[in-house]
């Protein structure tokens, strides 16, 4: 049996925490409990990944942060979401964008009736400064192939649409980007390319990122720190390398392993620091 990774419990004190999610509960339609006490910290400038199987509540966590929950009749009923020391739980999505958090939704969601440039300009919706043109160039620097596309963005390939969605996020000049499954529906080669670009945007632009993924291997290789969710709870966390090395992780997400054990719940070795308020 593998030993639990004891080091995971230590959060470096010197790091400035940009976003902190503390023990939140989310209820949809006033009856369906989806998140049951999620906590995570996103230090400034880092790339944090949130892993887990389908239905674990990863996207809901992102929506709780970005405020989209409200539009979908959900609500944060307990706990706190703090951004730069300010509570943002249950704020309207457009207010949260103005505070500097920008979500790239799952399934790309670009506006197909607009050109690439128009989509990028739309990303800069909240900005009032004159640097928009330069930033379009910046996006094309990261995604050169978008520059060649002059038609409506509905005609872009899946990978290009994902790139446009990320590019649109850069246009908003956010301090933090929430990325929901950027690898979905992309070929392995393209996934690699996209992740490399995400990492370099994170490092070069200094944009903090919270990345939700099912492709754990790829995500952990890029991430500074990772959280693993299951059934609305965080069950494991650690640095990218720690999680890659973690035996349980290997079994479940990375290399298959023993087929009998289906969940972390069955693991006796599972241990996690509890962070109650």
């Amino acid at each position, binding site marked *: 049996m593998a030993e639990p990774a004891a080091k995971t419990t230590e959060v470096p004190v010197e790091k400035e925490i940009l976003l902190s999610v503390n023990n939140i509960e989310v209820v949809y339609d006033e009856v369906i409990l989806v998140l049951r006490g999620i906590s995570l910290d996103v230090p400034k400038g880092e790339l944090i990944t949130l892993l887990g199987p389908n239905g674990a509540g990863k996207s809901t966590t992102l929506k709780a942060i970005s405020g989209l929950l409200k539009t979908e009749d959900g609500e944060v009923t307990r706990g706190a979401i703090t951004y730069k020391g300010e509570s943002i739980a249950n704020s309207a999505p457009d207010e949260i964008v103005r505070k500097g958090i920008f979500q790239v939704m799952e399934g790309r*969601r*670009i506006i197909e009736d*607009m050109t690439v440039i128009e989509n990028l300009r739309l990303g800069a919706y909240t900005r009032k400064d004159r640097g928009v043109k330069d930033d379009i160039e910046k996006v094309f620097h990261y995604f050169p192939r978008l520059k060649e596309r002059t038609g409506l963005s509905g005609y872009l390939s899946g990978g290009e649409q994902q790139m446009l969605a990320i590019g649109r996020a850069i246009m908003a000049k956010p301090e933090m980007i929430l990325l929901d499954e950027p690898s979905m529906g992309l070929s392995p080669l393209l996934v690699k390319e996209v992740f490399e670009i995400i990492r370099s945007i994170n490092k070069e632009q200094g944009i903090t990122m919270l990345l939700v993924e099912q492709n754990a291997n790829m995500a952990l290789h890029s991430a500074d720190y990772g959280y693993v969710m299951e059934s609305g709870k965080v069950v494991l966390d650690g640095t990218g390398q720690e999680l890659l090395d973690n035996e349980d992780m290997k079994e479940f997400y990375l290399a298959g392993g023993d087929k009998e054990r289906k969940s972390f719940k069955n693991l006796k070795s599972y241990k996690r620091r509890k962070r109650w308020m």
Partner: protein
Amino acid sequence: MASAHSRMNCGEFRTTYQQDTTIFPTPLARRTALFSVLFLMVAPYFLGPYYLNLGIQIGYYGIAALGLNIVVGFTGQISLGHAAFFGFGAFASAWLNNTTGLPVFFCIPLAGAMTMALGLIVGIPAGRIKGLYLAIATLASQYILEDFFSRAEWFTGGSYGAMANPFSIFGFEFNNDQLYFYVVLFYVVVMFLFGTNLMRSRDGRAFVAVRDHYLSAEIMGINLTKYRILSFGISSLYAGIGGALFAHYLGFVSAEGFTIGLSIQFLGMIIIGGLGSVMGTMFGTAFMVLLPEVMEAGIGLVGGGSGLIQALAYIREMAIGMAIILFLIFEPDGLAHRWRMIKAYWKLYPFSY
């Protein structure tokens, strides 16, 4: 001679970002627009009053229809009460002119502003509801306003209606169709440029985003409620100005003219023209205004007694409904789409693929 033959562009390609966002995407489009306006500038001198009248009708209906297209085509909402706003603009302008004596020149934009204010108020529920519920809410506003028109004697002259003076500025009256044609043309150019410009502005992109992906729009910092209400406001501004132009042209405003039937007709115009297309709105309006006239002329050519005229009169009424159905089936993107196809063909001429 360095080069005997001049270089011919095969297709129209953009080389700067500015080109992508100008009002007129190609030099040809710019020339066409300019030429059309110049043509219309001289039109009153050789068009007979009948054609001028049709031109004026297309003008004021077109402005109002563009407003509806902003709500339906650009923001993806629905309004069944557009005729009521059109009527409000008509009454407002006549009322301003009759009570304050302000020249009609100023009353028209003021009536537009008043209608916009009303649209913003009516738009408040629109910011929160969608689809069928919104359709019913706007239908309610249609009936409420219709009732208001026949009751508010101080404002509309009640059920009798109100007289509207001819277009005037400081004692100079535009009392013939030639002059009035220019007034309408001015507003058409201004309102359509504003509409086209709106669509390439930050707010215009926000409208389209709200329509296509309201969740995406939200996460880009767009306040859905604000834009839904705003689109009603802008649409009402258009309706109000169209209505005011209508009032001072006809000279008489009566509540009977602004029924649900006219609201549906406005919807027909933008469906036939193309939802979300500024130019298409013009095509659709022209189609709807000219169709009965062309049918009428057709009846005239066929000749015959009053019996035939009566029979064909029904066919003419049905033709409008028929046209809407045929467009929905065969050309759901409207005349604007057909126009784009023709343009695309010429743009890449002689290599169409």
